[in-house]
């Protein structure tokens, strides 16, 4: 069974006083299998962020449904929503979204604290993750004391510590220099190999080329998808670039 199923999802924004209707998502269909690493690409305004918000249960679709492990997100009660997100989803944001008032360690603990976990258990969970991400030495530091790459690694640790079904990453390399971006993508690959399902929204061809599968969104629809098969990252890079060229120059749909 697919881990995440997106069926006929539509999203229409209506201006507050009647007025214009904007169709952000027309008809989106796709599914994500467990242990898969999927990248979603598309230009600004293609509906990527809307889609991600719907997947994260931060927004509700106008039509269609989103199921996580067979459970329809629309059926999760408002009161349980935050807990549901906490337990099943991990988030990595472009601008890290770390809290300056917490040390990196406390930032990573935040979702566990919200879940009411005991301190000993939190510690136990933290150490292997911190080791994988190479931030063991930085745990007591505050966000304003470390570099962007280190911040993002802490944010990844925060996403992973709840052992989520699915990690949603929104432009995770967007605010990083190329070296830090490469390092982060390497880590994503490693986490993925350890069995974590990842869904990443990105602009960057480089970032997308590390995924198993790439979905291209245009005008609110899944326009095209690419499978890695046995291709290397460099070959993927080339393929994605070609697809993007076709997309932007308005090539016909082909699947």
């Amino acid at each position, binding site marked *: 069974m697919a881990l995440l199923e997106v069926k006929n999802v539509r999203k229409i924004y209506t201006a507050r006083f009647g007025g214009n209707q904007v169709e952000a998502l027309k008809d989106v269909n796709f599914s994500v299998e467990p242990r898969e690493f999927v990248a979603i690409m598309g230009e600004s305004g293609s509906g990527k962020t809307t889609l991600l918000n719907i997947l994260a249960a931060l927004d509700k679709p106008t039509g269609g449904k989103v199921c996580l492990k067979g459970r329809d997100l629309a059926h999760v009660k408002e*009161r349980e929503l935050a807990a549901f997100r906490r337990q099943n989803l991990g988030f990595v944001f472009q601008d890290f*979204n770390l*809290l*300056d008032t917490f040390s990196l360690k*406390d930032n990573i603990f935040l979702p566990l604290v*919200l879940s009411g976990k005991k301190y000993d258990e939190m510690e136990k969970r933290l150490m292997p993750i911190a080791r994988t991400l190479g931030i063991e030495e930085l745990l007591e530091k505050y966000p*304003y004391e470390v570099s962007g790459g280190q911040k993002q690694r802490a944010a990844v640790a*925060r996403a992973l510590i709840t052992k989520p079904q699915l990690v949603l990453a929104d432009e995770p390399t967007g605010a990083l220099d190329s070296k830090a971006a490469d390092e982060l993508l390497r880590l994503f690959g490693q986490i993925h190999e350890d069995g974590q399902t990842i869904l990443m929204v990105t602009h960057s061809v480089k970032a997308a080329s590390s995924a198993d599968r790439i979905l291209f969104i245009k005008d609110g629809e899944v326009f095209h998808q690419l499978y890695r098969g046995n291709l290397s990252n460099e070959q993927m890079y080339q393929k994605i670039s070609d697809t993007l060229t076709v997309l932007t120059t308005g090539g016909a749909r082909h699947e």
Partner: protein
Amino acid sequence: MNSSIYSRLAVTNLKNNRKTYVPYILTAALTVMMYYIIDALSRNDSVGRGSLWQILSMSTVVIRVFSVILLFYTNSFLMKRRKKEVGMYNILGMGKAHIAKMFLVEMLITASVSIGAGIAGGILFGKVMWLLLLKILHYDVNMDFAVSGTAAVYTLVLFAAIFALTLAYNLWQIKLANPVELLRGGSEGEREPKTKRVLAIAGIALVGYGYFVALTTEAPLKAVQLFFVAVVCVVLGTYALFVAASIALLKILKKRKNFYYQSRYFTAVSGMIYRMKQNAVGLANICILSTMVLVMVSTTICMYMGMDDILTTRYPREFEVTSFYPDKEAEEKILRIIKEEAEKAGVEEKDIMAYHSGGAATVKKEGAFNIAVDEDVYSGSEDVYELVMIPAEDYNALEGKDISLGDGEILLYNPDADSEKIGGTVKIQGEAYKVVEELDTFSLEEKNSSRVINGYYVIMKDEELIQEFLNKAYQMLSKEYSQLDEIKVSYKVCLDFEGTKEDCRKAEAAIKKRIKEEVPQAYCDGREIEQESFYAVYGGLLFIGLYLGSMFLMATVLIIYYKQISEGYDDKERYQIMQKVGMSKREVKRSIRSQVLMVFFLPLAAAVVHIAVGFKVITKLLAVLNMVNVPLFLTCTVATVGVFAVFYAIVFGVTAREYYRIVG
């Protein structure tokens, strides 16, 4: 640039910042109003130039100082919030001169609205306050109320000056800063503060010393002097403790992992540590202000409600006549006048006591009493004793006894209920006397524990001996008493009247009048006739206590409100991140509640502790003012704290909601 654009910009700015400007204008208007009312009252002719006037004009000074502080303080909040906006204008090409012009227009609008509304409100509510004052003072005299032009002008000038000062401050701030700094404005000073050990220890030492003084001072007069030392220590200590100890405390909480890592405290504790640098002084301000309000209101209410007790303590007997240069003729005349006038008014004299006495303040040292000079008296030392010497003949008459004493023999009576007998011989100004007996009762004063200064009644052989002592005293103190030819043994008659209150008052007034006319160097004191002047003083104090109390309360409320609002803006982003990471609305609400709760009730709790510790020393101070009814004071204090807490809780509710609205 077109000049009308400044006014348009200014109006838009005020509109956009209404969440902070409306409370500011409201506060300013209320402050103006309260100042105007008090100023107008103190200028009112019917108030006269007595103690009430003194109280009123003193409080105008207090309000003046307070207004400056309050308006400056709130203004600095506003400026901090607006730095970013100013930086933006600056970057978009507005010169500092233009910004200054815009600020000038804004300040003109704010100032004219608040001063105008304040004076108008003052004229409206002045009448109400006036009636309230009359009611409190028990004045049935026809005192009229008029709108005071002088007060209005004075208020206008004063507050225009204050606003001009704040404007100057704001412009100076803008002049100093560069645009990039201005843009960052709101988020300055955000780094985890270090624990300041020395300051924390100093704070503990200061508060500890203040508390020690408050708890161990027994003598009321000593308390008067030490009270201010203690208050200053506790105030400084409170600031030090809030600045240093609060951070230390929060860090300890943070170290206790099982407490800290709970969703309710996690964000609140870390958020408070993070911002404690700015918080601490504000919280200390709130604590001091609350303590002030509570002490002021509870003491004034207590004194007003205990007026009867105070009068009874101050005048143990209903009526007293004292003649300072008595002779046989004067003494008989006094008694005759009392009898005649009592009869005329239809009241009966009761328990008349008449006696001669002479006395002086002395310092007791190793069993010897020596006449005290001023410095000794003002030191408030417990060794200062007031000696009242009474000849044996009068003692026999008062007590219905028949004793006779030799030249070197005395009887002693200490009215302090807890006193120990001294016995043996005592020396009074060089002369040794044998204490024949130390009395257990004396009808002039029952044993009690409410005396402000210690004292002894000394029964001596005869008037001549007492006069000898007085002569010595006169020689020693002749500088201060140079307007007198000599000090003589005085003659005192005290008594109660039986009859209706009205008749008693009439009798007392008539006796007072006749004695003043007919007996030279004689004075009257009486509960009924003095009541009015007591009401003027204590009623005036109550009025001012409530008035300043409500003003300080307003300031407290406002400071908390501003603090929380500006924190809300700072926290907005943090709470948004936490919601993204998986904090539910309910948890956000709960976390905000516990954070706001800590900010609110930490200072209140500290204020209550201050008051609990200060309770004893305040009762001593009240004793100096003849208020010895401790249970009444306890009731007043508890009630005041209760009412204050209710107010506080309401403000807490409003603030928490507003905070949530900003964050959510």
